[in-house]
């Protein structure tokens, strides 16, 4: 069979991409109208996890820094929204920028000491943050509700919004945020900043001699990644309307990591696969046994890292490469 070659930037390539995205868009839009409310909710959750994985990817996939504290950052976003809406009766949408800011600042606070040393210590420190989150939340129970958690009343959301029921409304809200956040992440990756960050990951010392200031970029990507996790957490609070210390344990951080590994470290689309994985594997596994999800995740993490470090997306690309070659146009001087 003759292999087809498609050149990026040509009209052929553009039309394929356009049709692809149009189909995907159609599926995304129709989904909540053909699926049950519960299924819609599940996909909303999958997207939230995907955003969590995306945030971790910006840190781990791009800059090579590891974080086990992303469960805590996600939780911090969720608590910010729950407290502002639940206790202070804010408009939920207005809490998102606050959650973003809080987690951004928190990210800088972790990022600055973290950049003093290599990944080994970062893993260690973020691990401690991930583990400390639950007891710290319990400690400040005047604000957080302690072990009981804190909730948002359902009536802060209208019963029906522009003809959508609550499940559908939340689904589209999260879809819109996800589209925007993925686009922002993609722009960042494909820019001077993204190049600097990946260069630093590949080879830090030479990167420095190009004028890349590692401290600056490491801190800022840490903060940006934290902010993305925080926004995802705030949206989670919209959907679940509840924050409890036990929802944001180290297990969640490892789940994000598992989603990252499964989807493919460093890829953007992989994060979506990772999100679906985090949502649906435990759902079906736990019907069989409470521990099965963890075992499956643990084993899959190890097997993928050992045998196929590029994850599912890497495998998809390999299969695709058998059928068509997607190439960049040759570089010419103009």
């Amino acid at each position, binding site marked *: 069979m003759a292999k087809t070659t498609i050149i990026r930037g040509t009209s052929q390539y553009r039309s394929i991409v356009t049709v692809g995205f149009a189909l995907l868009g159609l599926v995304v839009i129709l989904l909540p109208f053909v699926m049950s409310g519960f299924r819609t909710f599940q996909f909303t959750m999958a997207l939230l996890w995907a955003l969590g994985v995306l945030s971790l990817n910006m840190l*781990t996939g791009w800059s*090579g820094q*590891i974080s*086990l504290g992303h469960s805590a950052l996600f939780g911090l976003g969720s608590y910010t929204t729950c407290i502002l809406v639940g206790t202070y009766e804010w408009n939920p949408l207005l809490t998102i920028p606050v959650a973003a800011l809080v987690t951004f600042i928190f990210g800088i606070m972790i990022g600055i*000491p973290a950049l*003093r*040393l*290599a*990944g*080994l*210590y970062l*893993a*260690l*420190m973020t*691990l*401690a*943050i991930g*583990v*400390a989150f639950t*007891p*710290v939340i*319990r*400690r400040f129970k005047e604000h957080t509700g302690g072990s009981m958690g804190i909730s948002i009343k359902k009536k802060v959301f209208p019963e029906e919004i522009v003809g959508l029921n609550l499940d559908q409304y939340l689904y589209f809200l999260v879809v819109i945020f996800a589209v925007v956040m993925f686009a922002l992440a993609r722009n960042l990756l494909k820019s001077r900043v993204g190049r600097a960050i990946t260069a630093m990951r590949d080879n830090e*010392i030479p990167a420095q001699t190009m004028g890349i200031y590692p401290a600056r970029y490491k801190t800022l990507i840490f903060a940006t990644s934290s902010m993305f996790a925080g926004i995802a957490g705030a949206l989670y609070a919209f959907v679940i309307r509840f924050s409890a210390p036990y929802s944001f344990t*180290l*297990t969640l951080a*490892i789940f994000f*990591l*598992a989603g990252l*590994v499964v989807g493919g*470290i460093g890829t953007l689309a992989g994060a979506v696969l990772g999100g679906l994985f985090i949502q649906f594997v435990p759902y079906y596994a736990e019907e069989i*046994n*409470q*521990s*099965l*999800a*963890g*075992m499956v*995740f*643990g*084993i*899959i*993490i*190890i097997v993928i*890292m*050992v045998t196929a*470090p590029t994850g599912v997306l890497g495998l998809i690309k390999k299969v695709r490469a058998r059928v068509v070659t997607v190439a960049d146009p040759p570089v010419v001087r103009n």
Partner: protein
Amino acid sequence: MTKFFQLVIAGIEIGSIYALVALAIVIIYASTGLKNLAQGEMAMFSAFIAYQFHAWGLGIWLALILAILTTFVLGMGVQQVVLKPVQDSSLLTVVIVTLGLFLGLNSVAGFIWGYMMLAFPAIFPEGAVEIGSVGISYAAIGVFAVLLACAGALFALFQFTKIGLAMRAVAYNKETSMLVGVQVNRVIMVGFGLAASLGAVGGIFAAPKLFLDPFMMLTVLIYALASAAFGGLDSPLGAVIAGLFIGVIENLAGGYIGFIGSDLKIVVPLVIILGTLLFRPQGLLGRKYIPRV
């Protein structure tokens, strides 16, 4: 003053556990450059194994010795199957794989033994030695003695045995060791088994105090990692000293600073890690090196 000494003794008791797990981490790090984030979970698993042997009717001491031996074998198996393939990969890969191991072990333990807290039989007799108004429990004395015995045995192993010498050689320089005929792979495997057993000692002796459940070692892991970092990732002696120190500091902070109480104690290792990282990255007794360009 009584309160102070009481807190110090409680600190030494729990600190001995931290030190044991920290020792395990340091031994693996020094010999392979690998930091095993699943060390705590492996220790937890060993504690369950000891529990199981005991539940089958063995005496507690026999149960724990058998559990430690089993762990030695399991540790070598884990190294061969899970970690050897990624031994020379990037740090990120190794960290992720040990976390996969973490999650896997945790879930398997939950699968077999459930998530309810189980009471672990006391290993040492009840009661305490009274010195003035301060009571030192037999358990505290016992755990501390176990730590000293383990550290001493480890020292003797490194100084006086062939395998210990080989382990030190591998830790110092893998390539050269290979050239002079050390079976590097076997040495690493045994080192891993040894580390797992040390962790097992920590887990088993922690079990009567912490109760058994799949998450029992989570905070211990953090304290142990903090001890390893603080003492110097490649220094066994540093790990022991730092483990004890952190145990004591944590108890004093929890006991005297009302704001910290029992929930915020966990922040103590965090602060210690941060402090180490900022002011003495190589740790108390660790070696410093300049990377080559």
